[in-house]
């Protein structure tokens, strides 16, 4: 086996030194009746060329080479080649959690830069070194709110990603955290009257997504004001990170639960992505996940270490702020490189390209169908209501190698024949025109 660096002679010699006859003697602690006496039923050992053939065939059986209007929490943005070139270095991807700071300064500094950039972009004061993804960041933010307020009720907008809400329900079900969902108004934003009915003196947090699942930007300042009057926290989920280049950051929020996939992370059929929890300094001790802090070595030189670890499972065990052990360091590093490449000017320009494509597309779609929620600002997604089932239109588009918008009936039956369309900087005008023609 080509990954194993021992010759048969090495093995013989090592066994001899151990004073055992065969390798199976080392497996004696496993009771004989449970030892596997056959080969595993997995494919036979393959050459590298065969392995790549297998995956290339898998790729061909997928939708390679299609233009897409799919967004809905996973966004197709251009990934500069610099990202993969850099993270393919073994020092990045074959290292582990930086427990030994003296030989992990690369990972630690990159994470510190990630935390700093996320703070800069979200208007928060502290960001962790990542959660699994945007969906799991939502329940983590809810549990954090419960700890901070001593209350247990969670109010979440129905315009938060449906799968994020499902994940929240899974986490909350056995922790005694009742969840209320609040619908959306005519403009696509959270329904304020319904919100006021849902919030009680036991509400720990109000959770919204902005831009929300329909692409609509919520009025975060007003919502924060309302939440704080009720003694609750405001949690803002961000699924489309590129929006931060143009959209006012949710500075009034107490916690931001974010998905960083848009920042240079491949779509990858849904993962791996990187979630983030960002918050105010005063809440840092209730944050989940790893944190990197700046310090000095014995000679006073700047360096970085994992810090405030007493929040975490390996020390506090069942009293920890979360059971998470992972940080998505490699994905966070991709995001850090992406944020660095675009930087102060580029992130804005990039976001404005998304706005331009979306404004054009929404206007064109509006000529032939009903575009919903146009009374509030939107980022790069919009909802189109048609007379026919959107699947029919999407089938016509597939013939042109275009994947149409995401049909919403499964999650929002009340919207009828509606679908969610996303345009990014990669969406070409001719593709938009072709889609409108297929309406």
């Amino acid at each position: 086996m080509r990954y194993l660096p021992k010759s048969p002679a090495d093995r013989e010699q090592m066994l001899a030194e151990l004073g055992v006859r065969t390798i199976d003697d080392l497996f004696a602690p496993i009771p004989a009746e449970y030892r596997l006496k056959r080969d595993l039923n997995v494919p036979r050992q393959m050459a590298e060329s065969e392995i790549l053939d297998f995956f290339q065939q898998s790729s061909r059986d997928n939708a390679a080479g299609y233009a897409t209007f799919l967004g809905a929490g996973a966004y197709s943005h251009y990934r500069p080649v610099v990202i993969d070139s850099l993270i393919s270095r073994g020092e990045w991807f074959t290292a582990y959690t930086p427990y030994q700071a003296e030989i992990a300064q690369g990972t630690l500094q990159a994470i510190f830069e990630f935390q700093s950039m996320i703070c800069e972009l979200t208007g928060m004061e502290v960001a962790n070194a990542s959660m699994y993804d945007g969906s799991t960041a939502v329940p983590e933010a809810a549990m954090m709110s419960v700890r901070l307020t001593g209350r247990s009720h969670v109010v979440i907008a129905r315009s938060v990603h449906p799968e994020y809400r499902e994940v929240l329900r899974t986490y909350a079900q056995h922790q005694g955290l009742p969840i209320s969902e609040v619908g959306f108004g005519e403009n696509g934003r959270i329904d304020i009257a319904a919100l006021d009915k849902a919030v009680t003196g036991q509400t720990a947090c109000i959770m919204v997504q902005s831009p929300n699942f329909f692409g609509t930007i919520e009025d975060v300042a007003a919502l924060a004001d309302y939440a704080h009057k009720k003694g609750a926290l405001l949690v803002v989920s961000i699924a489309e990170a590129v929006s931060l280049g143009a959209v006012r950051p949710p500075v009034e929020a107490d916690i931001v639960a974010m998905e960083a996939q848009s920042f240079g992370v491949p779509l990858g059929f849904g993962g791996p992505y990187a979630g983030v929890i960002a918050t105010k300094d005063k809440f840092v001790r209730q944050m989940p996940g790893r944190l990197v802090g700046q310090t000095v070595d014995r000679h006073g030189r700047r360096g970085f270490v994992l810090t405030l670890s007493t929040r975490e499972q390996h020390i506090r065990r069942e009293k920890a702020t979360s059971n998470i052990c992972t940080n998505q360091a490699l994905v966070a590093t991709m995001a850090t490189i992406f944020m660095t490449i675009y930087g102060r000017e580029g992130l804005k320009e990039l976001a404005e390209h998304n706005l331009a494509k979306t404004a054009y597309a929404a206007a064109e779609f509006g000529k032939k169908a009903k575009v919903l929620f146009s009374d509030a600002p939107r980022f790069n997604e919009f909802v189109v209501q048609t007379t026919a089932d959107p699947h029919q239109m999407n089938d016509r588009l597939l013939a042109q190698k275009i994947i149409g918008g995401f049909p919403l009936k499964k999650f929002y039956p009340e919207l009828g024949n509606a679908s969610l369309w996303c345009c990014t900087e990669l969406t070409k005008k001719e593709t938009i025109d072709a889609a409108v023609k297929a309406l």
Partner: protein
Amino acid sequence: MAYPKELKYTKEHEWVRVEDATGDIGTIGITDHAQQALGDIVFVELPKPGADITAGKSFGTVESVKAVSELYAPVSGSVTAVNEELNTTPEKINREPHTAWMLKVKIKDKGELASLLSAGDYEKFVAEEGK
């Protein structure tokens, strides 16, 4: 470091000082032995004024870089003051354990003081524990 005679001690390594004339108010901290065992203290989590604490029960935690330890109340009572200084300078506990107080409480039952250790007994207890 000597254990001051005017303090009363617990086997969980907290001390209480009853200083005012009425004997109503107890001041609570942790011992030199405790701070040595914990190492560099980086954070203390304490109840808010007005909270009730119960003798023998946890009233907060003290943290070093890689450990969290519970703090146990030497006496029952309600918290009248919290040493806010420790929020920014928890290292005071390492430097002056027997003066860097954590809480002042209005003692509920002065009888509880009788069951606490004297400085001499505590010193013996620590020596025994170390064996």
